[in-house]
């Protein structure tokens, strides 16, 4: 039985929560529900009409190009996650264990700076570096190599994804590893574990939660990104975000685009849920 003081407190808390609850409903839950409803609408004469037909779902999910695009997006986002995690790890390791506290503070500050500028602007600046007569090919030309095509390739897409995700992944990994109890690493060394082996035996198990969350973030950002595959990857093989754009453009097929979007959201839900479950999995007290 809550006392009147409790009820007053609850009312107070609720008042402050109301705006965010309101906001979430209007701008998140509402649109998602509308999108789900829209996936059952029909398009007649380039006009969307309300209906409840499964034709969009059956058409979309039976098309080869949808599944090609789906698996390609899963694959390239997976490769992006793997690359970001591997490239970030040595940097985060050095910042967490080798750098002084002051250096670490500055490094994290510097890693936040890229977010000051628009991701689109940062993506365009890669043109200067990656194009046929860009900085890299110019330098390779000096030693008699190239030119290599880097724009409009998977490589270009990945460079874009790294631009988006790497600073965040480094920050998340650094913060996770900096919080490890150094005594545990020394204890492992004391018990005959070489410095390199402690990475697998101690550091990764201890920072598992943070590392998985960093990977989830990286996958979500890459999976839903439109800019990198469109501008740097040249949308040779369209990823799902590009497919959504194309679908809406061709014949005003908003309902079919909604199908793609719902498939994407479902995939991300599944990945995030599995990842979090894995991250917080605890061993049983007894086997």
């Amino acid at each position: 039985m809550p006392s009147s003081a409790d009820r007053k407190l609850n009312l107070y808390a609720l008042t402050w929560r109301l705006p965010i609850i309101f906001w979430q409903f209007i701008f998140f839950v509402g649109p998602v529900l509308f999108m789900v409803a829209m996936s059952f609408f029909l398009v007649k004469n380039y006009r969307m009409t309300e209906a409840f037909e499964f034709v969009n779902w059956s058409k979309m999910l039976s098309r080869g190009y949808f599944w090609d695009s789906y698996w390609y997006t899963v694959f390239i986002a997976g490769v992006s996650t793997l690359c970001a995690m591997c490239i970030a790890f040595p940097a985060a390791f050095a910042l967490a264990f080798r750098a002084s506290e002051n250096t670490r503070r500055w490094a994290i500050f510097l890693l936040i700076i890229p977010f000051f500028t628009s991701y689109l602007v940062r993506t365009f600046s890669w043109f200067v570096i990656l194009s046929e007569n860009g900085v890299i090919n110019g330098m390779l030309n000096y030693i008699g190599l190239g030119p290599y095509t880097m724009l409009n390739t998977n490589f270009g897409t990945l460079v874009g994804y790294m631009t988006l995700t790497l600073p965040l992944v480094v920050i998340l990994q650094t913060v996770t590893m900096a919080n490890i109890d150094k005594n545990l690493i020394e204890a492992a060394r004391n018990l005959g574990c070489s410095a390199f082996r402690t990475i697998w035996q101690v550091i990764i198990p201890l920072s598992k939660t943070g590392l998985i969350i960093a990977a989830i973030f990286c996958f979500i950002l890459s999976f839903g990104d439109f800019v990198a595959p469109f501008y740097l990857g040249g949308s040779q093989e369209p990823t799902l975000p590009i497919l959504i754009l194309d679908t809406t453009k061709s014949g005003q097929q908003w309902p079919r685009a909604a199908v793609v979007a719902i498939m994407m959201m479902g995939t991300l839900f599944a990945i995030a849920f599995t990842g979090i479950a894995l991250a917080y999995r605890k061993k049983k007290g007894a086997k």
Partner: protein
Amino acid sequence: MSKPLVVFDKVQKNFGNFVAVKELDFEIREGEFLAIMGPSGCGKTTTLRMLAGLETPSVGEIRLNDRGMNDVAPHERDTPLVWQSLALFPFLTARENVEFGLKMRGVDKAERRERALKWLAKMDILEFADRDISTLSGGQKQRVALARSLVMEPQILLLDEPLSALDAHLVIRMQAVLTDLQRELGITFVYVTHSQSEAFAMADRVIIMGKGEIAQIGSPKDIYREPANQFVAEFVGRNNILSGNVASLSDDTARITTPSGDFTVPTNEVRLTEGHNASFVISADLVHISMGEPEGSNKAQCKLISEEFVGSMVTLFLEDAQGHEFKVQMQERELSKFDLKSGAEIWLSWDTASAHVLNES
């Protein structure tokens, strides 16, 4: 006489401009229980960490079995350490924690398991073998940490204040466990602590450190009865310290004039000069009390300030007319004969042989 297992050869450790320890020059004998004791910041943990290879000496050398250890990485040493924080791996079960060191050494799975279970049984925690570390109590974790180090069957076990996080009654139990283990296994224990009771209860020899240097090495009794200098005398709790001027010298005694009176002390091997300063100590438990003025040449009249009970032992805190503090330690049943009240005037006295002259330091 057992041979030295470890030799510290004029070892010094600097952290930047800070000298953590210097002139460490001592031996650790095979099979002994050595305690390194001192106030926090005295360098005792640094000394232990150098032995484990977690710090490298800036000057000098540490030798283990006559082998110079300065260039040997920590994981190539056989010097397991029991940590103050225990440092058990939270992502492993109790048994997996104990197996860790064996796994690193490439011992195969079946043997690993067998040896781990043997040690868990020996430490009386076999039933918790497959439990998560976080589900164990402080005392159980302590035993897992000991098993994890001892399963390596080392020649020497290092312990860094391992009992400091335990409840008082568990500390006494674990002290017994540790001394029994050390006797049974016959291996060398190096035990770092700030607790005099732990060090004196368990160790064969004690090293007292202060400000990065060794102040005294000796048996607990030597250190208690014959502190080498004022630092040790003050650190080893229940001592009365008096300072004054040497008034006269005879063959083996000296008469020292202090603000609290004139006292006769045995000179032992300490060189004293007439007219120079000298300090001496009398252990609190060697001081007698009486209501009337006693016989003898070493006595002081004091006022009782307060009493402190620990078990059946009582410590009296007294002050003489000059405000100098005296401490007397005695059995409670002896004290009850006197019926003392706070502020009571009583006489203290002690035998000349009970006094111990300090080296100047």
